[in-house]
């Protein structure tokens, strides 16, 4: 949909052809392994000829540095160690000055205010060993969008050095948990940038909001609202702030047969955004349904007396993974989009819930409960092979994949004297780089937006 990148101009530049001083492979971060050796990168502040913009250049560099460091794949070198003072990004840097401080890559940038008031952000990424330019790009944007441009630069650097798409220019919707005047827990939907900047509430504290999910366009979310006293699936338009109950009126298909006393739970979009999979309570327990956003038709996909909940689509949209207690304890199952060909994919002891299909298609993340502990794990989507546990703790819930399938966010709970404290944490798929997400207070139910266009 929206083509965001205002203008990308290759700055291939009129520079002397780079001279390779060492016979080496081009710079590349291997992200298939656990991160044993993050890549040392130098990130001097983006320069500006305009004194008034100098501070903004430092701001942008701080955001980029934080993004790259947070991935666990890069080790930004402290600016105090830098020898060369970058004054012109169109000149080749003194590579030896950067090699001597062990920087494998060097990012230099410049910001300029254009005549029309917009900000021109240009940058070059250098391989200090091969003495080659790896990237030279400039972006133009409104000055207030400087943070997004910084995330765009970080995404470009990440992609150039890892070969995979970045995930920094994204947003996260989650549930902000607090305590009301009577000690009750408040659950409000909130949204923020991936790095915790620009937080704001989407719902007020008068009702409970849970389990949000993004649409593929990042313009809408679904969530579970208690506005009407019980769990009800809602659709929320981020652009207008308008929201509506999914099956409120005019529902076709089996929508009219849904028990009005029954609840409807978290809904996830098909990859094309046209339909939702959602667990709806019928007189027969909870069953997975498909809801068409255009025709408003609700189709029942499962009809088991056990509870079938937490559906999530494969990235090709052909299959749905869900959890069900049909086998006794809760386990994970996949089925075709029409409900046929149900396959069980987990067989371990304990209870498996919250399956979420990876954007790459090969893995499904889950929460597992066994022996009084909770863990976050992944299993192959076809159920073959053995599961891999990434994290174990007192409480784990609601895994959410980064758009490139590299990082998982999840709710983590730890017991405290006044109740369990819930926070959102992230972990690399390889099981390293466990970090707390910078939410303002207690938080749960993260949903990660796609890359914003």
């Amino acid at each position, binding site marked *: 949909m*929206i*083509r*965001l*990148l*205002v203008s990308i101009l290759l700055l291939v530049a009129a520079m002397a052809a780079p001279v390779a001083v060492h016979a080496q492979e081009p710079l590349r971060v291997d992200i298939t392994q656990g991160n044993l050796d993050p890549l040392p990168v130098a990130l001097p502040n983006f320069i500006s000829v305009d004194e008034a913009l100098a501070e903004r250049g430092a701001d942008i560099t701080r955001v980029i540095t934080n993004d790259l460091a947070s991935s666990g794949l890069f080790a930004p070198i402290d600016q105090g160690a830098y020898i060369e003072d970058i004054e012109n990004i169109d000149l080749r840097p003194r590579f030896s000055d950067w090699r001597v401080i062990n920087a494998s890559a060097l990012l230099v940038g410049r910001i300029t205010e254009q005549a*029309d008031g917009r900000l021109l952000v240009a940058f070059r990424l250098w391989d200090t060993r091969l003495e080659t330019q790896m990237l030279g790009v400039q972006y*133009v*944007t*409104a000055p*207030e*969008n400087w943070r997004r441009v910084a995330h765009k630069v970080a995404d470009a650097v990440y992609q150039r050095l890892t070969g995979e798409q970045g995930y920094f220019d994204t947003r996260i919707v989650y549930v*902000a948990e*607090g*305590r*009301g*005047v*009577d*000690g009750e*827990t*408040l*659950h409000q939907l909130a*949204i923020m940038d991936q790095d915790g900047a*620009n937080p*704001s*509430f989407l719902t*007020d*504290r008068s009702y*409970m909001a*849970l*389990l949000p999910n993004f649409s593929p366009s990042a313009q809408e979310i679904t969530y579970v609202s208690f506005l009407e*006293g*019980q*769990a009800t699936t809602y659709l929320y338009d*981020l*652009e207008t*702030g308008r929201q509506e109950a999914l099956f409120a009126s005019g529902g076709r298909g089996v929508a009219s047969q849904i028990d009005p*006393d*029954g*609840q409807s*739970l978290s809904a996830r979009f098909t990859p094309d955004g046209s339909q939702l999979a959602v*667990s709806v*309570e019928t007189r027969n327990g*909870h069953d997975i349904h498909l809801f068409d956003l255009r025709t408003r038709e609700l189709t029942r996909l499962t009809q088991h007396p056990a*509870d079938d*909940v*937490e559906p999530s689509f494969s990235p090709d949209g052909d299959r749905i993974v869900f959890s069900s207690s049909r086998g006794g304890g809760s386990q994970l199952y996949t089925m075709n989009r029409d409900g046929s060909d149900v396959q069980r994919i987990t067989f371990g002891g304990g*209870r498996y*819930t919250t399956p979420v299909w990876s954007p790459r298609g090969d893995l499904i993340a889950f*929460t597992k*409960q066994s022996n009084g502990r909770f863990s976050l794990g992944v299993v192959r989507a076809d159920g073959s092979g053995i599961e891999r546990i990434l994290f174990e703790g007192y*409480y784990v*819930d*609601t895994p959410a994949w980064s758009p490139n399938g590299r990082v998982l966010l999840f*709710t983590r709970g730890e017991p405290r004297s*006044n*109740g*369990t404290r819930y926070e959102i944490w992230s972990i690399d798929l390889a099981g390293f780089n466990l970090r707390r997400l910078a939410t303002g*207070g207690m938080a749960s139910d993260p949903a990660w937006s796609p890359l*914003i*266009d």
Partner: protein
Amino acid sequence: MRGASGGADSFSRLVSGVIGSKPDRVWPDEGVNIMKIKLFAIAALGAFATACASTPEPVEEPIPAPQPEPVYEPAAPTGPAEGSIEHFVETAGDRVFFGYDRHDLSAEARAVLRDQAAWLMTYGDTRITIAGHCDERGTREYNLALGARRANAARDYLVSQGVDPSRITTTSFGKERPTCRESNEQCWAVNRNSTTTITSGYTN
């Protein structure tokens, strides 16, 4: 914040339009009323400790309904008004308890529900909501489903005892409205319940 292309417009709208227009920016205050929560939790635990002193199986054992204090002065009855919410809670009991990951009714739970049904048959203008609750040892959506099962189990039993189903609504709060906030089995046992609330038709 106008860009030269449609792309730039969208860029601006996404960043500042959406976020800036939302209700408030104050983070919820987590520190409020911790004292109150603690006192509540201790009271709930006290009730449970009494219950499990008499039984080796705390998980399956429901908490008995509070008994009225013995009255030594027969004159001037001071109990709750007949047909009031307090009267319901005292004479029938508003909660029944469930085992871990269970939604079947124990003998004790059925006894409480029979008392609830008898009260509801006596005060036939009342309407009720049954809310299912879970402990925190389950994921959020799983527990919303489990809580619904608990509420439905209680409703179905009341209906089997003659209560008109049109007087009953059910809901589930999963693990989100715990009675007791501590992280131990006693607390979790208290939180695994269905709670019947009189919503209309009662005496004030």
